[in-house]
C-alpha cells in the first residue's frame, strides 16, 4: 500500500514554512505522496473535507513544494467544472515541469457542476496529448471559431507546454455518482473521502470493474482516511491500521491519504508520519507476516514506543 499525507497549514500569515516542514518529514519517512486540496476559506460549499491550507490554489502550492522535495509525488486536487479546462491543463503541465514529473492531478467536481466532469477530464487529456486537436460541442469548444478572431486561428489547437510525464495521473475525487461514471468511462483513478466506508466503496469499485473489465486493474484506488485519536490525545495507530486493513481487504485500496486532525501542526505531523512508517505501513505491506517478526520489531523498539500526541 502507498501512503500519502494531506497537507494542512497552521502557519498563519506565513504558511510556507509549515507546509515545507510537513512535506520534508513525509518524504524523509518514505511517504509516496503529498496531497493538497483547494481551500477557499469559510463559506465555500466545496471545501467540506477539503479545507486545510488556507490557500485557494492547490497547484500553486504544489509548485512551491517542488524545490523543497526531491522524490515524493505531489497531488493537487482542483475544483472542476467552473473553469475552462484549458487553464487546468496548462497549469498542471507547468507544475509537472516544475516538479520534474511528480504531479498527480486531482479533479473534484464543483457543487452543481458534476455533469461537466467528463468534459473537463476529456479536455485535460486532449490538452496533454501533445497533438493539436479540435473539440466542438459541449461547454468549451476548442478552438471556438468566433467571429472577428481571424489571424493565426487554425482548425485545431495545441495546449502547451506538455507535462513531463507521458501519462499524467488524473484522479477524480469525491463521493458523487459523476465521479464513478466518469472514472468508469475514462479509466481514471478515484479518491474517496473519509466519510465513504469500506462496504460502500466495495460496491463502487464493483461497478467500475464491471464497466472497465481488466482495464480497472490499472486504476489507483485511493481514499482519504482521518487518523483516529485515542484516549489521552495520542494518535490511535492500531485503530488506523485496522481500518486500512479493512479497506485493503474489502475493495483493494492501494493508496491512503492520511488526514491528521486540524490544528495538528508540523511537529505532530512529523511525529505521525515517522510512527506510521514503522508501525503501520510494514504491517500492511504483505498478506501475512512471519510469526515472531512483529514481536522482534517491538523488542528492538522500532515497532513500538510512545505514540505521538495530538497537541492539545
Amino acid at each position, binding site marked *: 500500500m502507498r501512503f500519502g499525507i494531506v497537507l494542512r497549514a497552521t502557519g498563519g500569515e506565513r504558511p510556507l514554512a509549515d507546509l515545507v516542514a510537513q512535506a520534508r518529514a513525509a518524504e524523509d519517512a518514505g511517504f509516496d505522496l503529498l496531497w493538497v486540496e483547494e481551500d477557499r*476559506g469559510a463559506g465555500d460549499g466545496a471545501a467540506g473535507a477539503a479545507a486545510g491550507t488556507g490557500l485557494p490554489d492547490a497547484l*500553486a502550492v504544489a509548485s*512551491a513544494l517542488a524545490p523543497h522535495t526531491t522524490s515524493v509525488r505531489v497531488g493537487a486536487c482542483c475544483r472542476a467544472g467552473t473553469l475552462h479546462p484549458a487553464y487546468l491543463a496548462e497549469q498542471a503541465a507547468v507544475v509537472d*515541469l516544475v516538479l520534474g514529473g511528480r504531479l498527480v492531478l486531482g479533479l473534484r467536481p464543483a457543487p452543481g457542476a458534476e455533469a461537466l466532469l467528463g468534459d473537463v477530464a476529456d479536455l485535460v487529456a486532449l490538452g496533454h496529448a501533445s497533438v493539436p486537436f479540435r473539440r466542438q460541442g459541449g461547454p468549451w469548444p476548442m478552438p*471556438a471559431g468566433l467571429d472577428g478572431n481571424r*489571424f*493565426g*486561428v487554425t482548425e485545431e*489547437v495545441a495546449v502547451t507546454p506538455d507535462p513531463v510525464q507521458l501519462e499524467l495521473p488524473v484522479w477524480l475525487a469525491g463521493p458523487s455518482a459523476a465521479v464513478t461514471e466518469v472514472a468508469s468511462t475514462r479509466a481514471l483513478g478515484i479518491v474517496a473521502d473519509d466519510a465513504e466506508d469500506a462496504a460502500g466503496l466495495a460496491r463502487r469499485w464493483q461497478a467500475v470493474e464491471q464497466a472497465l473489465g481488466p482495464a480497472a486493474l490499472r486504476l489507483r484506488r485511493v481514499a482519504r482516511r482521518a487518523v483516529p485519536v485515542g484516549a489521552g490525545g495520542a494518535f490511535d495507530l492500531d485503530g488506523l491500521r485496522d481500518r486500512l486493513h479493512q479497506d485493503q481487504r474489502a475493495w483493494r485500496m492501494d493508496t491512503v491519504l492520511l488526514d491528521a486532525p486540524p490544528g495538528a501542526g508540523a511537529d505532530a505531523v512529523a511525529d505521525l508520519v515517522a510512527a506510521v512508517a514503522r508501525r503501520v505501513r510494514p504491517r500492511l505491506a504483505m498478506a501475512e507476516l512471519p510469526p515472531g517478526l512483529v514481536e522482534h520489531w517491538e523488542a528492538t523498539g522500532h515497532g513500538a514506543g510512545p505514540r505521538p500526541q495530538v497537541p492539545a
Partner: protein
Amino acid sequence: MSLDIGVGLWTMQSTVSAPSSMPALYRRFVDDARRVEELGYHSMWMAEHRFWYDGWCPAPFTAAAAAAAVTERLRFGTGMLLLPQQDPLRLAETVATVDRLAGGRLDVGVGLGHRDAEFDGLGIRRASRGARMDEALDVLQAAWSGRPWSHDGTHFHYADQPPLPAPAQQPGPPLWIGGMADAALQRGMDRGLSFLLPQTLYPHEVAALAERIRAGWQAAGVAPGRIGILKDAWIGEDGDEAREWFLARTAVHYREEAGSWWVLKGRATGFEEPELLDRQLRRIVETPLVGDPDRLHADLQELADAGADLVVLRFNFDVTAERSMQAMSLFSRTVLPAFTGATP
C-alpha cells in the same frame, strides 16, 4: 529620484533558435531566482503566452511559486500577464495563494494580449478584450477585499461570493498596466494603478508619458502609482562587442515573434508584410540599452530623470539565456550599486 531595477523576462521557451529541455528550463528558473536575489536586484519578471510551439509558460505566477519558495526578498512580477484571457476569479485565487506563500512579494502586470489564436482557443472574442480587462480588474479588487462580494457584468458573473483568503499584501499586490494606448492610460490613471511602459520608448517619450500619467492620477483624485518601463538590455566590458552579440540575437528573436504574431496595419501578420515588418523591427533594435557599464549607467539615469522609478532590464531571452547570468552579474557589480546605494 530612486530607481528600482528588476530583471526579465523568464518565459521558458524552447525555440528553434535555442532548443532546450523543458524541465531544465524550469529548474534553471528556480536557480536563477536564487542568483538574481544574491545579485541584489529588486525583482524578477515573467510573461505569459499560450498555444505556441515553443511551450511559452502560460501560467507564470504558478511557476513563480517555486522560485518564491527559495528566496526571501526578491519580488516577482509579470510583464505582462494577459488579463482578458484569464478567468479573473481563478487568477485572484492563484495570486492570493502565491502572494501568501511568498510573504507579499508579487507585482501583477497586466496587458490586453493581441493574438487572435489565443483568444479563440479559449472561446473569447478578441474584440472584447478591453471590456474584459475593465471587468477583470474590478473582480480582482473585489475578490481581494476580504469581504463577501458579487460581480454581475457583461463577461463575468459571480454571485454571492464568500471572502477569498486574502493575499499577504493589502489591499492586494500592486497592479501594473502595460501598454500606452489612450484607453490603457485612462484605465490606469482613473484607478490609480501603476504603469509598466513598453520597451521601445525613447527617454523623451517616457518623460512625456510620465507627465501625462501623473497629471491623470491627479485629475482622477487617486493616490499615484508608480511608473516603470521594460527595456531590452545587454552589458559587456567592451560595449561594441556587447552590442554586436546582443542585437544579432534579439533580431532573430523578435523577427520570429513579430513575423508570426504581430498583425501589421490590420492586414496580415508580419511575415506576410515583410516591408512593414522590417520597419517595426528597426525601432526594436534602436531602443535597447546596450553597451559598457558607463553607457548603461548613463542610460538608466536618463530614464530616472524622465520619471521612471522602476526599470525591468530584459537580459533574458531564449537566444541569450546561455550568457544572461554573466551579464546580470557584471551589471550588478558595475552599475547596480549606483542606484541601490549598495557597496559594489
